[in-house]
């Protein structure tokens, strides 16, 4: 049985063209939404990272990560892909069958594939923070820019929306650099409440850590291409390279003041990227994720029970 998804956005152009997939340990499937945004994830597109049959697809995801983050110097070693992503967390994304892709595109990606193989074009990775419903998203990879001929504009936003729904996420934490283009995507979903502005514990201190409250309306709006209305009154700008301003903002946060990134980066008067920030009143903590609703009251859809599944659900 497949659970209902109250938010049906399956007519979105990218969701119609692309196939969703998910990677998660087999025992985790009953907790997942396998019809995110109204788009069913077929059984064949559900991969168990502990199953030998998943190896080829997992290798493709590692390649996707390297194509996206390798140039930024933040690729994931394979073992970390298992330890820090696939085993504890959930990976979901969108792809195309190899036969639907131009041969030049496959060659560009370094993929040799059988015609029926699923080629991942984007993925979102998150690990749990608190149970249930609070996740930390640490990887949003998209090949949109590498494959302009496929016309995948908006792929990262759709992929993140899909992932948030798969995980039944009500609150998402994440970290990104002030200079990152990823802020364009994350701010589609609403204000990013700043947990840190200056982050010495991260590899790059000019990193912000944020909290995003996730709700249906924000996801629907993000996929429509609209942005939340800016809070213009108290808005000020942080230049991505202005470490003094970033550190001053951090000091105010640590004194208990609340701020949020309230829109996408823009080009400042001098041409440097700058990010809109405003005082922010935190909403009450989001309630835990609603349990799966099934039309006939039956248990949620699940992957075949494995030894590992029974270990966690004796």
């Amino acid at each position, binding site marked *: 049985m497949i659970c209902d998804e109250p938010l049906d956005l399956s007519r979105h152009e990218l969701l119609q063209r692309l196939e969703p997939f998910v990677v998660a340990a087999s025992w985790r499937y009953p907790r997942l939404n396998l019809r995110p945004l109204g788009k069913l994830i077929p059984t064949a597109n559900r991969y168990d990272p*502990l199953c030998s049959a998943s190896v080829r697809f997992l290798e493709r995801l590692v390649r996707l990560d390297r194509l996206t983050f390798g140039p930024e110097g933040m690729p994931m*070693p394979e073992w970390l892909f298992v330890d820090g992503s696939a085993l504890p967390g959930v990976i979901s994304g969108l792809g195309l069958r190899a036969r639907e892709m131009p041969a030049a595109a496959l060659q560009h990606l370094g993929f040799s594939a059988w015609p029926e193989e699923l080629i991942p074009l984007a993925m979102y990775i998150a*690990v749990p*923070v608190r149970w249930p419903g609070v996740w930390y998203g640490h990887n949003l990879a998209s090949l949109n820019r590498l494959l302009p001929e496929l016309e995948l504009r908006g792929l990262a936003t759709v992929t993140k929306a899909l992932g948030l729904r798969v995980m039944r996420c009500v609150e998402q934490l994440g970290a990104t650099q002030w200079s990152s283009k990823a802020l364009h995507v994350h701010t589609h979903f609403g204000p990013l409440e700043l947990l840190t502005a200056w982050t010495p*514990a991260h590899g790059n201190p000019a990193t912000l850590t944020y*909290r995003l409250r996730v709700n249906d309306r924000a996801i629907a709006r993000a996929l429509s291409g609209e942005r939340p209305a800016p809070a213009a009154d108290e808005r000020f700008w942080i230049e991505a390279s202005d470490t003094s301003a970033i550190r001053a903002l951090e000091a105010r946060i640590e004194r208990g003041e609340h701020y949020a990134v309230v829109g996408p980066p823009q080009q400042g008067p001098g041409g440097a990227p700058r990010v809109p920030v405003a005082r922010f009143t935190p909403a009450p903590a989001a309630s835990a994720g609603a349990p799966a609703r099934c039309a006939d009251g039956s248990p949620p859809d699940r992957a075949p029970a494995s*030894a590992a599944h029974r270990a966690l659900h004796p």
Partner: protein
Amino acid sequence: MSGIRPVTASPRPGGGVGASGPLRRFVIASQESAVWHTRDFAPDVLWLDPLRTVDAAALGPLQPPNEGPADTAVPRWAVYDCAEVPGAVIGFLRTPVCSADDPSLDFLSLVLATPLAEPGAYHLYGLTVRSEGPEGEVQSLRLRTLWSAMDLLQADRATMVFPWSSPVVRGLPTLGTVEILAADTPLHGPVPAPTLMLYGAATPSPRRLDPPAYRFSPDSPELSAVLNRLRDSIESGRRFLLREPDAASEGGTLAVCEVAHDL
């Protein structure tokens, strides 16, 4: 960070987990993580929050190796993204320091913990021990570090991946029941490494059938064939436990028993 006193770690299950003496435990975890909310139960532990600059400044010496071969180094961003904020980094300090400002802050051992999506369950990895002592002492520290993590996380189960040839695999059953979830974890590296699940002491765990279904040495030329059979069995739905090596086992032989069907 006030009132921190050196403690002598208590004995752990499995006995003989050495490195006795005053060892201070530390936890790096954000206020967002579930483990942060257990800190009142562990007042003797040094707690550091990576989201606060004053604590983050102290983290430098408490980092797992982040330079070197890709099969051992943990990128700094990954420690932050996968462990410190959502979960924890847990370990022992080399000296019984009294505050985060102590210049001698330096870790003796640590392990990264990422929550699983199942309440009470974690994935432990990146186990690192900095000791030049004899192997017995190093092995004790490894196991003690893992157990300490289970304790501080209040974990009832933890998954982990270690090579079959690792001493940790041999020692893990001294801490509790160990189930083999994968005979050779896909993509984890060139060396065969099982995915194991350690059950907490208070967690109902499966009962094993004796005699062992498999006995093998990680150094054996037949290892690959044995693991292929074990993998096929697990993927067909059978369950297996790693048995504690008995004193008579020679050459590092490991014993794997099937789970009894009464659970």
